[in-house]
């Protein structure tokens, strides 16, 4: 099977290794990944600022780029959730709404794609780690793909998952929130890191690149020896 890679801008320019791991995982799952040209940003940033008008041109670009894809796979719950929301940005009588709905329906977050679309949970991955799962809010509550992440991690050999005291709690990134309210964002991510440290984990795993960047960079500032890994990196194991 073939799938088009939908690479979030954050992954393209800041976390390219997450894109590489995603590619490796798809190949391991027997999928041939294609990277269509011209991808930029899904428009989530503008959307959460209340500017659907600025998202519409980006949604049109996205739909054009991906309309011929057999399936669209993205290593981000929040960007997938944004694309799933595209149809709602266009009026009921706008013919583009239907086009957007078709692309939205075949766009999946990586874990969701593997479990719900391919019916795979065991990818034969090995990762010798004691880790905590940060189930990103956008992946779990907004997109509803949290159980897929958990099912995939449960099958990773060598991986011991330790619980966080407040696993459902946000990491405090929230896109523009971390810029508009830096003190509150800092306080929330500090609590998340406290929970991670208290769990005794050597690593924290998440399916969301923005949580990954937020938690990893805040841990780096504190010089903590805890790794932050994307789900794809764990599933890719030694594959790349």
């Amino acid at each position, binding site marked *: 099977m073939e799938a088009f890679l939908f*690479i979030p*801008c954050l*992954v*393209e*320019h*800041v976390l*390219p290794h997450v*894109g*590489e791991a995603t*590619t*490796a995982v798809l*190949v*391991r799952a027997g999928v041939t*990944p294609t*990277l269509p*040209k*011209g991808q*930029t*940003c899904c*428009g989530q*940033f*503008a*959307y*959460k*600022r*209340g*500017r*659907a008008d*600025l998202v519409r*041109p980006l949604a049109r*670009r996205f739909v054009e780029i991906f309309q011929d894809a057999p399936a669209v796979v993205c290593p981000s719950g929040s960007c997938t959730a944004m694309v799933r929301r595209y149809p709602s940005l266009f009026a009921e009588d706008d013919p583009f709404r239907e086009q957007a709905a078709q692309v939205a329906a075949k766009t999946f977050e990586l874990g969701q794609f593997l479990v719900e679309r391919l019916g795979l949970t065991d990818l034969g991955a090995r990762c010798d780690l004691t880790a905590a799962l940060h189930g990103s*809010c*956008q992946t779990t*509550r*907004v997109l509803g793909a949290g159980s897929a992440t958990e099912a995939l991690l449960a099958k990773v050999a060598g991986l011991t998952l330790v619980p966080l005291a407040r696993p459902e709690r*946000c990491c*405090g990134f*929230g896109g*523009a*929130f*971390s*810029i*508009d*309210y*830096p*003190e*509150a964002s*800092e*306080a*929330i*991510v*500090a*609590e998340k890191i406290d929970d991670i440290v208290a769990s005794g984990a050597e690593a924290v795993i998440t399916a969301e690149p923005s949580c990954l960047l937020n938690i*990893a*960079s*805040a841990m*780096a*500032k504190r010089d903590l020896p805890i790794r932050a890994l994307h789900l794809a990196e764990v599933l890719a194991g030694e*594959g*790349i």
Partner: protein
Amino acid sequence: MTKTAHDFAKASAKALGDRQSRAILHKAIGHIRVLRQRSVNAMPDFAERQARAVAVRDNTLAKLPELLEKLEASVTAVGGRVHYAETAASAASLVTAILSERGAKLVVKGKSMVSEEMGLNEVLEAAGIEAVETDLGEYIIQLAGQRPSHILAPALHVSKEQVSDLFARKFGRTSTDIPEMTRIARDSLRQKFLAADAGITGCNIAIAETGTVTVLENEGNIRLSGSCPPIHIALMTLEKVVETLADAAVVLDILPPAATGQTLPVHLSFFTGARREGERDGPQEMHLVILDNGRSDILADPKLRSILRCIRCGACLNVCPVYQSVGGHAYGTVYPGPMGSVISPLLKDNPGDPRQPFACTHCAACSEACPAGIDHPALLQELRRRVSETETDLPVAAFSLLARHPLLFGGAAAVGRLFDPKLREVAAVAPDAPVGRFLRCREFPGLARPFSRRFKALARRLKRLQGGRA
């Protein structure tokens, strides 16, 4: 934004600097969270209860004018009087007039957020009427000259030790033993109940078919406030009405577990009118004040009206990462947290920071916890849209423009990668610019060689590997 508008960003930064208050809040919220979880876990039918409650709340919103007329007729039939107030200020004057006309000098109050919304205590004081809060938390707040920080637990942000110090100052008598502290408050309050000319309470649910004001509490002070003094004035906002007693039971099925993790509160009072002929006790007069304060406009707004389903359980506050971190006072409004961030900007008096709907991490914990099925994230999104329509958001507009042109978008990243990959220069030159603010507590990993430039070689390598395996 007007000059006088509240600034949540500044207020929250200040609140976050107060480590002691943060620790108290943290502990208290953790406690409520555990209680709620335990209670919801013990109710296998929580989802069904929730669905029934949503249906009852939606019935109210669909038939509100009719139900209010019915409520007025029922209250009148049991000897009460109904008063409508369009604004918080007019409601406060109305209550003050009722009391002044009857020469009332001392009023006991059961906990009421609507009274806070009216700013009633200040108005009463100006009219020479002493108003004493009788809910223990609210009493503590009143003695300390503060405002409630949580809609259910007004003194959530105050520690036992702080209350002990406060009592020592106010009563010359104190303790750190909670039963003993409660006794100290009770000794003072009991005299007030007996001497009061009137009692003011809130209203959790008003029942249209019976004219009943339903109130939930754990202390008994509301029952005393509504039954002991000769005049009872109940305050409600117009969406608190339900059609039937059975409907009230449906709301009661969900309110205590969502609020405090209880199956039922310690006291559940049904106040139905004034003392009837031949009855030996109860108030001689009963007044029900129904406040609008912008809610009719919300009802007429199909995109926002679902916020009026709210039953004020506080569950959304207890799970909100922003509320949990900054506390209730930073909001500068009567209603904080997610429900407050939706409703406050829509109220006519004291709308708070117009940008409050932006102070959200989009985590959706609020809608998940809400027993009334309110989709706070969607409502906040709609409010953000309305605020954004009126302003120019340069960074977002610029970013969106770049994102329409892949060459420019990639080019901008390439320039950054070349000159300042870790964004240290930007952060040093402009610590208050967006990037600078983000980097205050974070070590940016750096702009890297884009994935799209690595993909071809990677795909070839993976194909070879895969081929080798097969």
